């Protein structure tokens, strides 16, 4: 009987460890990882000391299409104050990524995560999802999905607050 109990405990511990190992998403206050360590295609902008919006999108995602003009306007409005948008595509076919960019001509930096290594590290709960980092490189807010003006207004308020913080 005792050995059965021990076996059950060992089993539960094993399962617990496996489940813990599987959930490794980024959370508030976590630092922005070194993006050059991931197999991203495209030029990475200078992010040091800036407020960064890391947006995960895909060419097959309709709300992503809707978000691009709004993000372009936001980038143009706040670029001079130290705000950078880096949009990471999770498309697995570079052709889809390029076609989407040609059509929408975004006014911010984009890179391709075709191997989906960075997105797997962030584990966004929906497409698109934006991760907002402060000047200190720490995660300050997460926006799952894109809900038009509601998302933009909320983002603008958070970005302005982060921009007013002194550079580290």
């Amino acid at each position: 009987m005792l050995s059965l109990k021990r076996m059950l405990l060992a089993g539960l511990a094993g399962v617990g460890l496996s489940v813990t190992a599987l959930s490794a998403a980024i959370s508030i206050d976590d630092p922005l990882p070194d993006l050059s360590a991931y197999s991203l295609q495209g030029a990475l902008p200078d992010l040091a000391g800036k407020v960064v919006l890391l947006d995960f999108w895909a060419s097959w995602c309709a709300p992503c299409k809707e978000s691009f003009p709004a993000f372009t306007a936001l980038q143009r409005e706040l670029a001079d104050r130290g705000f950078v948008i880096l949009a990471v595509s999770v498309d697995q076919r570079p052709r889809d990524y390029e076609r989407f960019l040609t059509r929408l001509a975004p006014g911010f930096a984009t890179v391709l995560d075709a191997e989906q290594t960075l997105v797997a590290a962030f584990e966004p709960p929906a497409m698109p999802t934006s991760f907002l980092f402060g000047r200190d490189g720490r995660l300050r807010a997460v926006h799952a999905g894109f809900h038009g003006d509601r998302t933009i207004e909320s983002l603008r308020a958070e970005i302005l607050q982060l921009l007013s913080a002194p550079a580290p």
Partner: protein
Amino acid sequence: MKRLARWLILPCLIATALLTGCQTVQPWERGTLAEYMMRPDRDSLHSTMSEHIYFSREASSGGRGVGGSGCGCN
């Protein structure tokens, strides 16, 4: 050795049941699912025929917004 094997069997069984029981498609992995060819309603003729067969066989008169007796003859 036998004892060790007994200790390992149950954790392996539980882990197998829990970790391979279902597969979650993550939001960023849905590119193939979002393709046009994956849409069940991409062929309007096929959709109409399927609807007809459905409400006829299920005898669900008007079940999908289609009037009829369920005989499949209208």
